[in-house]
């Protein structure tokens, strides 16, 4: 349980440092950079396209979401040398998002001959970040050309590649690591960073996640038949979270990043504060009861949400907005039921809720952090982005939640306390609570 128990009189808990967000960064299929992404989510811009390559490879689902990164954007963060033989899209997106969050927070990187930034750490997760590079390596190895792998195959394909690249660019001197918990990776990363700051082990933590793209990453999901195959001709309508006609998710990619910082540190340097991280919780359904490798155990999901609320000192009715996991599969109604039961609210009392996946599909390990950036932007600027492709709300959902709580047009409304959760393969759950006006 991660939390600051603001209202708790327990002295041990009160000793915890409060944690705020001072920087954001994102590389999303519908917008590269926070500014472009902010305007994209306000207008419901889709980042889903048809990929002829997937059609040629006999994929059932031939639509997907991939950030469109210009050469100029790439060269803002990478040197020519770093781009030599570089073929790891996850690391590309992660570095761009991470460095944007660092800049947005107004934190200087360490000079080449300076001491590292001892109080700044990095938790940047991924599922896979360099499968394209790995594929290259396999072809070379199989033809007896191991030498041709060169000096960067390891860094580009190791799980911790993304945190290692960022660590070097920034000069981070605190813990620098990569977490991996499938689709909950990004949300778990922020809670791991939160814990290090709350406990006084770090002052600033760059947290986020990334996922690479392409047939190798997406093929396994296509084989499982969890992707939609019904919208190859109309990609923008393919990802349909909470819809009665949802028919599977659309695979995506990208990266999101948040700079977490102790409130004291942020105030001390006069940093812009987006929101406070009140607390959260990570747990596992143990792949028991309804839970399995691929399906969530509802009692664990509810427990995760309730414990996150408790850790944050927040009651269910105080939640104004939920950024759902909601992937556009048959499990969406179950997720809504779990939120309703855990928060103890339904009908018109249920919070506003939306899913970014309607616009950019499911970014797998990157989904949590891209959605966190979307959630914090909505909290900070007071709006709820429209739910794409959800005109035909699933009847099991409309039986629980009032239609107006699932807007299909952008809603302008001040938000105070919000929740974001992610659930992933392996029955992992993560939920985090943010507040805007607590500072």
């Amino acid at each position, binding site marked *: 349980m991660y939390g600051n128990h603001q209202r708790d009189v327990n002295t041990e808990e009160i000793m915890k440092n409060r944690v705020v967000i001072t920087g954001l960064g994102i590389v999303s299929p519908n917008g590269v950079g926070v500014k472009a992404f902010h305007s994209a989510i306000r207008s419901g811009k889709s980042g889903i396209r048809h990929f002829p390559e997937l059609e040629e490879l006999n994929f059932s689902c031939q639509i997907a979401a991939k950030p469109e990164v210009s050469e100029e954007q790439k060269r803002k963060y990478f*040197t*020519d*040398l770093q781009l*030599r*033989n570089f073929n790891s899209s996850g690391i590309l997106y992660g570095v761009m998002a991470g460095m944007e969050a660092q800049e947005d927070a107004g934190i200087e990187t360490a000079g*080449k001959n300076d001491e590292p930034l001892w109080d700044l750490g990095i938790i940047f997760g991924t599922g896979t970040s360099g499968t394209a590079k790995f594929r290259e390596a396999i072809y070379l190895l199989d033809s007896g050309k191991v*030498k*041709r792998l*060169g*000096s*960067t195959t390891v860094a580009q394909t190791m799980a911790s590649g993304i945190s290692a690249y960022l660590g070097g660019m920034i000069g981070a001197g605190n813990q620098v690591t990569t977490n991996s918990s499938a689709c909950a990776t990004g949300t778990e990363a922020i809670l791991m960073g939160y814990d290090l700051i709350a406990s006084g082990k770090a002052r600033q933590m760059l947290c986020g996640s990334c996922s690479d793209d392409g047939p190798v990453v997406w093929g396994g999901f296509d084989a499982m038949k969890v992707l939609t195959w019904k919208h190859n001709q109309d990609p923008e309508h393919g990802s349909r979270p909470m819809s009665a006609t949802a028919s599977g998710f659309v695979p995506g990619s990208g990266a999101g990043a948040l700079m977490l910082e102790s409130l004291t540190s942020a105030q001390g340097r006069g940093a812009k504060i987006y929101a406070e991280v009140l607390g959260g919780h990570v747990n596992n359904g143990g792949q028991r009861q309804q839970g399995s490798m691929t399906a969530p155990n509802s009692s664990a999901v509810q427990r995760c949400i309730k414990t996150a609320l408790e850790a944050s000192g927040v009651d269910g009715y105080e939640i104004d907005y939920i950024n759902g996991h909601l992937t556009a599969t048959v499990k969406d109604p179950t997720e809504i039921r779990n939120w309703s039961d855990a928060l103890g609210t339904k009908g018109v009392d249920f919070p506003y809720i939306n899913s970014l996946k309607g616009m950019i599909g499911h970014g797998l390990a990157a989904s949590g952090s891209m959605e966190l950036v979307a959630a914090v932007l909505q909290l900070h600027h007071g709006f709820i982005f429209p739910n794409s492709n959800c005109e035909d709300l699933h009847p099991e959902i409309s039986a629980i939640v009032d239609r107006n709580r699932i807007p299909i047009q952008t809603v302008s409304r001040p938000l105070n306390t919000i929740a974001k959760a992610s659930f992933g393969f392996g029955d992992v759950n993560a939920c985090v609570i943010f507040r805007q006006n607590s500072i």
Partner: protein
Amino acid sequence: MTSEEIYTKLQPIIAAYLPEDVSAENIKKDADLTQELNINSAHLVDVVLDVEDAFDIELSNNDLESLRTVNDAIAIIANKVEN
């Protein structure tokens, strides 16, 4: 191929691996690749791959071990090209 011709062809290959604060003018014949030019030692294997492609030769593990300076590189290449 004269050693001057090899040197001319070698300079842009090495230049690609120089850190940002080292200019290509420093690629003198007696310059030590890692100590003076500050090329990351991990990148020496990439320099070798590029040399192999450019000169259509193949370097051995022993060649790599004896590679310290630009002159070393010129000598190794000259030897292979002649053969």
